[in-house]
């Protein structure tokens, strides 16, 4: 794992290669996206909504952000590759839809960390501070999205290939003052897990629906979407399992490890990771619905105790950092 400390205390740099970015043009661009996204869109200019894409049986297909910049809509998805995603979208395109989807030909570079806002303002200008969480703006020819999933400040920049060298030059110029460090996917995944953000790419998640995974906030009941009927039926039948976050000591926990209570199997670990901040293992597990609450003392199959807790499991530094009062240079003044 590389860059965890930078994400939690300074600024981490990530070249995002795991997301598909598509640009939607035309009068029905939002209608197409609204037909496939379970979340209510009704996007205002400069707004991003966090959604999810589902298979027809309700299982999660992709994590999705939908954005509006001017008249253009964007879809940023993680999970499937580009070809699979485009085929899925084409198969669910509304009849007579006057819209086209295009590859967003830009490099995606992300900054994460409690002082990401400060480095970002050096690189694209101070107007970045006016971009709210789940907001998108265009600054200096670069599209800036505020969509961090680490519990810290997070920005993704879509940089046109023609200006990529200049953008990277500015990062190289200003980055050292922020101890900027490249971060790998494992560090970001660990931060996401610690903050209760779902990683849809993990094998254990692919068989689950948003109901078990506590993602119903991404679903609308007021419109149809792929998977809606399946989830309606599942909700009516009653949930057998629901996700919980577990903390345990000791070595890494295997995906699929059994979760027990009083010696009886009551669930399984979907995925887990070692937290450098806590020096403990953090896991997302599915357990029997009546037990799916914090403060339950489970055991793992190897006999280790594992207690359920409410995520986030760490106290993010970013919630104590005020861009109008603090700076990385005076970071010792930030209380926590």
């Amino acid at each position, binding site marked *: 794992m590389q860059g965890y400390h930078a994400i939690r205390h300074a600024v981490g740099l990530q070249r995002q290669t795991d997301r598909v970015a598509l640009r939607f043009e035309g009068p029905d661009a939002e209608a197409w996206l609204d037909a496939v996204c379970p979340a209510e869109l009704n996007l205002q200019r400069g707004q991003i909504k966090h959604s999810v894409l589902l298979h027809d049986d309700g299982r999660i297909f992709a994590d999705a952000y939908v954005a509006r910049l001017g008249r253009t809509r964007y879809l940023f998805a993680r999970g499937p590759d580009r070809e699979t995603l485009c085929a899925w979208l084409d198969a669910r395109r509304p009849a007579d839809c006057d819209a086209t989807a295009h590859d967003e030909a830009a490099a995606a570079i992300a900054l994460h960390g409690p002082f990401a806002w400060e480095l970002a303002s050096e690189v694209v200008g101070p107007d970045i501070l006016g971009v709210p969480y789940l907001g998108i703006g265009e600054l200096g020819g670069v599209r800036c999205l505020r969509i961090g999933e680490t519990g810290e400040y997070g920005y993704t920049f879509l940089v046109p290939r023609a200006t990529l060298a200049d953008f990277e030059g500015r990062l190289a110029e200003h980055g050292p003052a922020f101890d900027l460090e490249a971060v790998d996917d494992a560090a970001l995944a660990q931060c996401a897990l610690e903050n209760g953000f779902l990683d849809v790419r993990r094998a254990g998640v692919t068989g689950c629906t948003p109901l078990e995974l506590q993602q119903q906030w991404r679903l609308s009941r007021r419109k149809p979407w792929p998977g809606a009927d399946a989830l309606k039926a599942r909700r009516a039948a009653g949930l057998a399992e629901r996700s919980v976050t577990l903390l345990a000591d000791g070595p890494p926990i295997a995906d699929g490890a059994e979760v027990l209570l009083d010696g009886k199997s009551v669930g399984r670990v979907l995925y887990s990771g070692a937290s450098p901040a806590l020096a403990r293992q953090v896991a997302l597990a599915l357990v029997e619905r009546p037990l799916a*609450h914090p403060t339950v003392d489970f055991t793992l199959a190897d006999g280790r105790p594992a207690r359920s807790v409410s995520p986030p499991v760490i106290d993010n530094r970013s919630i104590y950092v005020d861009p109008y009062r603090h700076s990385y240079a005076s970071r010792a003044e930030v209380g926590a």
Partner: protein
Amino acid sequence: MNDALRARLAAREALLEQLVEVMIRDLDLDREPDEIDPDTPLFATGLGLDSVDAVELLVMLEVDFGVKLDGEAEGRRALRTVNGMVDLILDRQEAA
């Protein structure tokens, strides 16, 4: 599941239901109670609450649950998810 755990989880479930009902009422949330999962984030993503809603939550905690926050830091921790608020209320009840 032993009786003590069963009783504790039943109490937690009841408090969770009460809290969600009060949130829907006081924050005018366009959601059914069974759509609000306990680990749902409250602000920005998740329920999408804002700073005005945060004030409503503080009033709700004090009026409906007799809980007054001890400073800004406690609020920042407790008001991150529905379960965080339940934890706070239960901690205060146990301490009383």
